[in-house]
């Protein structure tokens, strides 16, 4: 056994990323490479580079970053035998740079790729949670405790890619402004040596806080461990203690060593015990195991499963919580009763999306049944139709609401992440309640505290957008926005129109450029003035043969950037629109993340956007109507969003 430990250690050491992957410092010229250069040559090169730097700065427009003169590099090209450890970014995307022009006479001003410091710096957000640098993934143990909101998160402190993970930690009074704290838990025990993975917090009735988390052991076995604050009276909960008797749970018989992770917050059983659930799989059936405990140290595995759905694969980050049928508040995880439904949510390892379903929980049997089996966990509704994974809720007893956190990964290349020195965001936290009107889905809405960042409101009242037209919205700036809008299509047109079979799919129907009778229409965010780059977020209305309307809500990244190495998918889904409702949209634009909400949060789409031109002063906002048959009337409120401490 010890032999395999050192084998594992060795393989980890040799595969660790080189530490010299430091991010490019702001505004500095890249070093080129790190081969030593003789000092007299150094002086000459320095003078040449200063001259050329000055010359190219003069030739430049609107700082795409300094040009690294070509001759500096060719004089010291590294041999391939000894790979230099630093990525040597050469010319930084400057189409007007002195040296590049001679090689690319055919290029106009349009080649703003590859990535300049300016483009990469712009991508950092103003009001989304993110560590100062390096890699983050799942949110962990969110909780309100002793006057502070705590967020822990999967963190790789050494590089902007996933690796040996620890628990990062930050606190906030308002879920928007954050104070980053030291790492809460490191990989310092054999039972979490390969990673301190995801877990959840439970507040006990006496006010005590406990955390259960998954450790990947020195032999890559997934086990559950107990941890608690070293000093419960420290409101910042800086130091943590791991229970000496860890692990408290190991994979049970029949469950693979690598299919046992992400324990939930515990809730009370009718017998007065605590109950948790842990996702797993058996062959290709995603399942949720149930354990009862009285002390979080010894557990009893229940005979049955909370639930299982064939064909869905591994269930990661399972979440289980009550929602009120009638009330507007969230509910503590232990609440149960006739006025309550329960949500089961899981992150599907196979397709990287978060799915949920509403159903009924039988506390005595420890089983849950979906209201609508055709919309079961993993095959039905998603929290979000864009990039949204490993999400987790907690009950915020401070404001009596259930709050949802989620990991939003990058959709650019790893190489770009290395260059910019960071990767991943958390979505803006959202409240979750049952949609009282439809009774068959939840609605999510950005926490109200985000409204405190609103400033400088511009109102566009009753803008008529004719068929096939584009309306620029005059704003001081367009990278940090909160947009709230309502749309109306022309009723007479809708009545006159012949219905047809509706076969629309956001992802497959050509995006915003594909015109239909009643759509698409909406906003183009992060748009360049010539629309060389833009990201449409829109409604597409379709009339069926039965005369009923269906509405789709989509976000189109296909023309979001001139870069050829970013994801350009189109996301979206149908959104239920009830009789008498206007089409309503809210969009939060925060640099490289766009979060879109339709019908007050019935359908949500999170997108990552990486423009090369539509950045800083060149980012704009447009209204558009690409429908062929109808005009659209829009009423729009746009706020500039202040930056938060993130």
């Amino acid at each position: 056994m010890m032999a395999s430990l050192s084998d594992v250690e060795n393989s980890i050491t040799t595969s660790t990323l080189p530490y010299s992957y430091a991010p490019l410092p702001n505004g500095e010229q890249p070093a080129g490479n790190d081969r030593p250069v003789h000092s007299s040559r150094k002086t000459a090169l320095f003078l040449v580079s200063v001259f050329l730097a000055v010359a190219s700065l003069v030739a430049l427009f609107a700082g795409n970053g300094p040009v690294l003169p070509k001759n500096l590099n060719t004089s010291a090209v590294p041999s391939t035998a000894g790979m230099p450890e630093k990525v040597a970014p050469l010319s930084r995307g400057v189409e007007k740079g002195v040296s590049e022009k001679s090689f690319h006479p055919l290029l106009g001003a349009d080649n703003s790729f590859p990535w300049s410091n300016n483009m990469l710096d712009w991508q950092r957000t103003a009001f989304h949670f993110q560590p100062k640098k390096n890699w983050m993934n799942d949110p962990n143990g969110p909780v309100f405790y002793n006057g502070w909101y705590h967020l822990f998160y999967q963190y790789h402190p050494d590089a902007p890619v996933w690796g040996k993970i620890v628990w990062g930690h930050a606190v906030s009074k308002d879920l928007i402004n954050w104070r980053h704290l030291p790492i809460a838990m490191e990989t310092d025990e054999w039972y979490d040596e390969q990673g301190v993975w995801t877990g959840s917090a439970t507040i006990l009735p006496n006010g005590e806080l406990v955390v259960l988390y998954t450790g990947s052991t020195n032999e890559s076995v997934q086990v559950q461990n107990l941890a608690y604050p070293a000093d419960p009276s420290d409101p910042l909960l800086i130091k943590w203690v791991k229970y000496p008797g860890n692990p408290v749970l190991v994979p049970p018989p029949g469950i693979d060593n690598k299919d046992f992770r992400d324990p939930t917050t515990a809730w009370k059983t009718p017998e007065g015990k605590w109950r948790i659930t842990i996702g797993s799989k058996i062959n290709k059936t995603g399942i949720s195991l149930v354990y009862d405990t009285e002390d979080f140290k010894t557990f009893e595995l229940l005979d049955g499963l909370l639930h299982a759905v064939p064909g869905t694969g591994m269930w990661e980050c399972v979440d289980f919580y009550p929602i009120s049928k009638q009330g507007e508040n969230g509910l503590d995880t232990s609440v149960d009763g006739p006025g309550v439904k329960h949500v089961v949510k899981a992150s599907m390892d196979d397709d990287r999306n978060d799915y949920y379903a509403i159903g009924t929980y039988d506390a005595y049997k420890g089983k849950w049944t979906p209201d609508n089996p055709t919309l079961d966990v993993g095959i039905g509704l998603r929290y979000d139709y864009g990039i949204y994974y490993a999400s987790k809720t907690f009950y915020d007893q401070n404001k009596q609401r259930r709050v949802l956190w989620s990991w939003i990964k990058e959709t650019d290349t790893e190489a770009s992440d290395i260059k910019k020195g960071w990767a991943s965001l958390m979505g803006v936290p959202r409240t979750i309640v049952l949609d009282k009107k439809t009774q068959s889905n939840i609605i999510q809405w950005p926490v109200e505290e985000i409204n405190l960042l609103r400033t400088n409101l511009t109102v566009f009242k009753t803008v008529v957008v004719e068929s096939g037209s584009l309306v620029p919205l005059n704003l001081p700036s367009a990278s940090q926005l909160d947009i709230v809008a309502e749309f109306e299509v022309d009723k007479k047109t809708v009545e006159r129109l012949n219905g047809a079979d509706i076969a629309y799919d956001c992802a497959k129907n050509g995006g915003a450029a594909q015109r239909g009778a009643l759509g698409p229409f909406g906003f183009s965010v992060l748009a360049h003035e010539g629309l060389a780059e833009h990201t449409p977020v829109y409604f597409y209305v379709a009339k069926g043969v039965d005369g009923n309307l269906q509405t789709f809500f989509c976000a189109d990244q296909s023309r979001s950037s001139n870069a050829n190495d970013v994801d350009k998918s189109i996301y979206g889904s149908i959104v239920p629109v009830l009789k008498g409702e206007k089409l309503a949209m809210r969009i939060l634009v925060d640099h490289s993340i766009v979060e879109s909400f339709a019908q007050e949060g019935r359908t949500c789409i999170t997108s990552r956007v990486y423009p090369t031109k539509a950045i800083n002063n060149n980012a704009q906002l447009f209204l558009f109507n690409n429908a062929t048959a109808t005009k659209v009337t829009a009423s729009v409120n746009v706020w500039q969003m202040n930056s938060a401490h993130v």
Partner: protein
Amino acid sequence: MKSSPLTILFLVLLFQENLFSATADRLLIENTCKGTPSYNLCLSVLLADPHSQNADLTGLAIIAVYAVKNNGYQTLQQIEALKKFHPELMAALTQCGEVYKGVVDVDVPLSINALNLGNPKFAEDGMADTAVESQACERSFQDHAQTSPMTNANKAMEDVANVARAIIRMLL
């Protein structure tokens, strides 16, 4: 010399045992490769490494990722050579050099790490990224209105990365 029939029987069974396990491993390799987009490429990659004979699925995935790494190094050498003989392609070749350095320095270690640490999802991301990078290199020639001299190399990288990705997917 008299050999006991039992000894002979024992030796025969031993020999058969080895044959069986060798066949079983070969079967694992063949079945695994059937689940990838390039069966023959997958077979040649896995069989080229003697460790594949005793490897489980994770081990086979690691072998495939190392093939991506080797391919990446070879492509980087090709890029350096092209730079010498085709300076007019310097800008695109430079971009290609960057992205392939990313493949060997970032994507490959990420995938190996993820496979060793027990979270194959991130290994898949690394190989998916490799395929994107090889496509980005190919397109950078088009972006400069030039003909790519690396079409075969980029396709080869994309294919190996997709084989690795497919094997990793079986671990999810």
